[in-house]
């Protein structure tokens, strides 16, 4: 299991396009992926879950990856956040 703490850098937060990019990327891996924000945990592979997070710029998220390809998955997902979903 790998854990990461990330901050949302892109100004519009996890709105339609970044949320779709996140879920599509997560779907490429078999590992489980959970996101926690303010004690509220959702499945990172669920677009509805990601939407209900309503995560805005500056929000701090706790990411958990668990499974056979957890390392690759963590790299890909954390990369998306660091890159501000290509919106920086």
């Amino acid at each position: 299991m790998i854990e990461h703490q990330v901050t949302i850098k892109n100004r519009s937060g996890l709105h339609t396009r970044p949320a779709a990019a996140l879920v599509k990327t997560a779907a490429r891996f078999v590992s489980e992926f959970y996101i926690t924000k303010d004690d509220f945990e959702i499945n990172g592979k669920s677009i509805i879950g990601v939407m209900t997070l309503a995560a805005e710029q500056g929000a701090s998220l706790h990411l958990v990856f668990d499974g056979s390809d957890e390392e690759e998955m963590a790299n890909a997902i954390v990369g998306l956040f660091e890159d501000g979903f290509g919106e920086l």
Partner: protein
Amino acid sequence: MNNGKQEIILKGLPSSGGIAIGTAYLYHREEVYVTERILTDEELEAELVLLDEAIERSRHEVQKIANFAHEKLNEEAAQIFESQLLMLDDVEMRKALDMRLRREKKNADFLVYDELQKYKELLGGASDELLRERVVDLDEIGQRIMRNLQKKRLHSTVEGEHVIIASQLTPSDTILFSKNDVLGYATDLGGITSHAAILSRSLKIPAVTALHTVTAVVQTGDEVILDGQRGLLIVNPTQDHREEYELKLRRIANFEAELKGLVDLPCETPDNHKVELSANAEFINELEYVVTQGSKGIGLYRTEHLYIEKGDFPSEQEQYVEYSEIAHMLYPQQVIFRTFDIGGDKLLDTAVPESNPFLGWRGIRMMLDKPEIFRQQLRALLRASTMKNIKIMFPMISGLTELLEVLELLNDVKEELRGEGMAFDESMEIGLMIEVPSAVFIADELAKHVQFFSIGTNDLVQYLMAVDRNNELIADLYQEFHPAVLRAIKHTIDTGHANGLWVGMCGEMAGNPLATLLLLGMGLDEYSMVPSVIPEVKTIIRSTPFTEAKAVADEALSLSNSFDVRSFLYTYMRDHFPELYASWMTGENGENDVE
């Protein structure tokens, strides 16, 4: 014409431009209703298969719409449906449905309804418009799955040409109606940034949203006029309003025919004085139209919509993608981008209410207070300039210090890009809008630092005359032919020319055919206007010698009040352009008094 029924004018938000005249069709979406039921064990296995099939069928339906949006519309439109596809495939929703089916043994359509209700409650409390839009999306996919579970067909086709009146339209409604002969959309709810509004714009279907009571006021079969420019719906219009709008529609139709003959001809007087006619634009999907209509590029590209649609400032990358797409579409024609002009009537949701927004924190004033955001826009514009067909202008400049501050920031950004090895147009022309009276009087100082001026008459007139044009009590004092306005324009053009600048105009006056010769005679080099008036303006310029236009301008400038100027110009146009004059006389009735 209106069968004795009282005319009612409803005011909403102008969400997609254009005009529609026709009969109303009151659309009630067929909601799918569910009743809770306990299943037998045999039914349970069949229900699981049914759910699979219903989701699969729903996916197929949305995929078709997504493909259409991809091919015929733009990426923003397609993204709306891509998101809906992801919702249909949502693992958590599916897990929850399967689990509850087995545990609670209830019918699948009820469980879909109940499960989505939970998600909607989680999202529903949000005040953010973007989140509220997601509730509409969730509702739409929920309804779709339930309908497919009940094996019902969707009846969202409407026979004949109508203006669709609805409480709210979903993204799919908007697309599906457009495949019929829909004339326009008017809705109780929604907003400029709602998905349905975004789609209406890319479909080029006029739309007015946030009318609040339209479904209560309008009945199927009522005659309506939908004005997507001004955000009005006129129900049971009077004869006058009907004629006025029919004329507007005819003008739009005539314009395309007229332009075919004019499109390749230069905009030049018989004695070879050339000027440029360009178009004002705001949305990327307007450009196709502009390109084919023979303007010389874009004289004013408003960038605020990027902010308004998103509800926030777009990133450098998002802006770069849009700006370079525009530059490519227009090449070799030029496009002048105006940097963000937010504030005034283009309200910032989060801004502190100002008692005097037009005299407040807007345009360049706001951008200089938000240098990080301003730098991103400048970087994006510079990066998009590699084809050398982009110019930048700044709104609301009121003094030299402001301009120098802006230019310093621009040079700083250029230096930064050079350091990063990013290419841009080193010789890009920079200009400023002349729209604050103080800028007129120090035009000579400002001219030393830029390559062009663009006169923004809408604001210039309201600031010079101290008149809020939206205030009915004093709207008649808003006079673009006031001698003070004419002198300010003349002074700006002369000062620009004396300093080697070219001078354009991008306010409404540039597209007013009554002002065409006056401005030509004053020496204006470029007119930027809504594309639909280009043929009239071009016809006037191509038929009048420059020397004659100068005489018209001299005469107009010698008159002492607005009424005399207008009478002189009307008389001149009646004598020299009787056909145009006749069409204005019918159109002039109530041109400004619909509200």
